[in-house]
């Protein structure tokens, strides 16, 4: 593109790269700091002596963490939730996207059904009606409240992404299968799904991350701590404050009193699953998200 490189052009490149690298570093610095904090001694953390390197390096907070049975209970609930939620998403989304990717000519009810879906995505009754409905269903303290409520709110977006992907597949593939006498179930499972790895990986990533990160439904639908998913457990631990009025001094003391090294260890462990999943699926979600948002 730019064959002739002048001195000033090179300088611009260097400055640019330095700025970009600094920005990128700010994105991992908080994680690095959390790790350093979790490996420091309690007193150093309380005194605010920890910077980028652990002070009085030790694994005490991780040993302490091993004795916290609630942490592992909550971790396990989150794992179950992710498996159920992402699994359900993986089955239902292609199943709904396939008929809805047809034109009205091939599937008469298509537009009415599509607009119903869009409506559920754009409009909702709000928090209180949702809470009362789940209570009326008797799903309080059940993991299904977490899986089904969260799933219903995110699934339509995933369906739209998948519809757009299906529509971009060459129609001759389906026509060839039709000529061979294939039915709709065969076409969906043997033609469409195998060709849809990028979009299915994208929606799976979104679903996994969503169910892993969501905390509010854990807070309102679970009345006992033992049923909290991991994020709700950490939320209660780290950032929850007494909603009654509070003075500046109380707020200061609260941040000093909490066991910051142990909290940092819990936060760090809770990050790991996401850190493991997203780089591998990166090339897919970039493709998936651009497909969903920029169309010709």
């Amino acid at each position: 593109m730019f064959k002739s490189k002048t001195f000033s052009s090179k300088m611009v490149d260097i400055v640019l790269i330095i700025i970009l690298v600094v920005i990128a570093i700010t994105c991992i610095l908080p994680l690095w700091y959390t790790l350093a904090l979790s490996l420091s001694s309690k007193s150093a953390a309380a005194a605010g002596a920890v910077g980028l390197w652990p002070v009085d390096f030790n694994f005490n907070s991780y040993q302490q963490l091993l004795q916290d049975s609630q942490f592992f209970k909550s971790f396990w609930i989150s794992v179950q939730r992710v498996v159920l939620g992402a699994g359900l998403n993986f089955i239902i989304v292609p199943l709904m996207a396939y008929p809805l990717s047809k034109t009205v000519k091939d599937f008469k009810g298509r537009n009415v059904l599509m607009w119903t879906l869009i409506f559920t995505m754009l409009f909702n009754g709000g928090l209180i009606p949702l809470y009362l409905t789940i209570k009326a269903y008797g799903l309080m303290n059940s993991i299904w409240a977490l899986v089904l409520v969260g799933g219903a709110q995110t699934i339509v977006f995933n369906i739209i992404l998948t519809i757009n992907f299906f529509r971009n597949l060459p129609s001759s593939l389906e026509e060839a299968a039709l000529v061979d006498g294939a039915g709709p179930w065969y076409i969906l499972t043997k033609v469409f799904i195998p060709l849809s790895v990028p979009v299915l990986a994208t929606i799976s990533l979104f679903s996994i991350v969503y169910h892993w990160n969501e905390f509010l439904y854990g807070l309102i639908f679970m009345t006992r701590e033992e049923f909290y998913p991991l994020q709700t457990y950490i939320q209660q631990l780290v950032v929850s404050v007494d909603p009654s009025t509070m003075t500046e001094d109380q707020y200061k003391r609260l941040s000093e009193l909490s066991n910051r090294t142990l909290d940092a260890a819990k936060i760090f462990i809770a990050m790991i699953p996401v850190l493991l999943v997203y780089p591998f699926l990166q090339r897919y979600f970039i493709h998936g998200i651009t497909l969903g948002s920029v169309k010709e």
Partner: protein
Amino acid sequence: MRTKGFAKHYYLMLLPGFVWLILFSLVPMFGIVIAFQNYNPGLGVFGSEFVGLETFRYMFQLNDTMNVFFNTIYIAIMKIVGNLIVPLVFALMLNEVRYMGLKRSIQTIVYLPHFLSWVILGGVLLDIFAYGGPINQLLGMFGIDPILFFGRADLFPFLVVGSDVWKEFGFNTIIYLAALTGINPALYEAASIDGASRLRLLWHVTLPGIRTTAVLLAVLSLGNVLNAGFDQIFNLYNPLVYSSGDIIDTWVYRAGLLNLQYELATAVGLLKSVAGFMLISLSYYLAYRFTNYRIF
């Protein structure tokens, strides 16, 4: 094509998903009637007495709700502007980097915060900006007295906007980068041969090339004017900053689920849902008119 008789299979494919959405998205919408009732949890939605618009009249008299509406729009607009401009500038800078390996590593790193929950990042940010935390230590080196960042109502909206832009800019960059790769390289070559400098290439080729994308994103962001970010604020705020940081969603949570003012919380939530629905519909319509964008 022989697609006759496929419709019943299509309906069968859609059935489980629709049952799910009806139970967990559409049914809760009927709970909206609570806003027009003198709701009694013992009697339920069907037994409670209807009072018409009384709750709404009461709502508009409360200073509290007016303040909350203002905060929501104020924070949301700042976020929209930041989330449009910062990713654009970042994408333009990244686009100038010609070392593919470096470019890709920077990209992978800047996506990371998007995938972490506000519970996690809330905990980390509260630690970093704590009274005795690293930011205050750093300021201390320049002789600045420690600041109680997240306890100050005047700073809170800016911290919220800044941290949100920081969390999302990497992910928001994806769409701009896709638009940048879509620009015809021949345009750059032609302009270079005509003797255009890098700055002129940026001005006459790159910027016009992504104008449509930028307009589209700006128009679509209109639908988010009432979404200031529940998860984020819920995990960062405390009673000291309610005056400037309380938004509709956090207020509904506290009024409804902690103070059990079901009617009022539902009414405020309903107002938000209706206004939000109209705004999103409008933004989709405008996006269709101006850039021919369709959601599916």
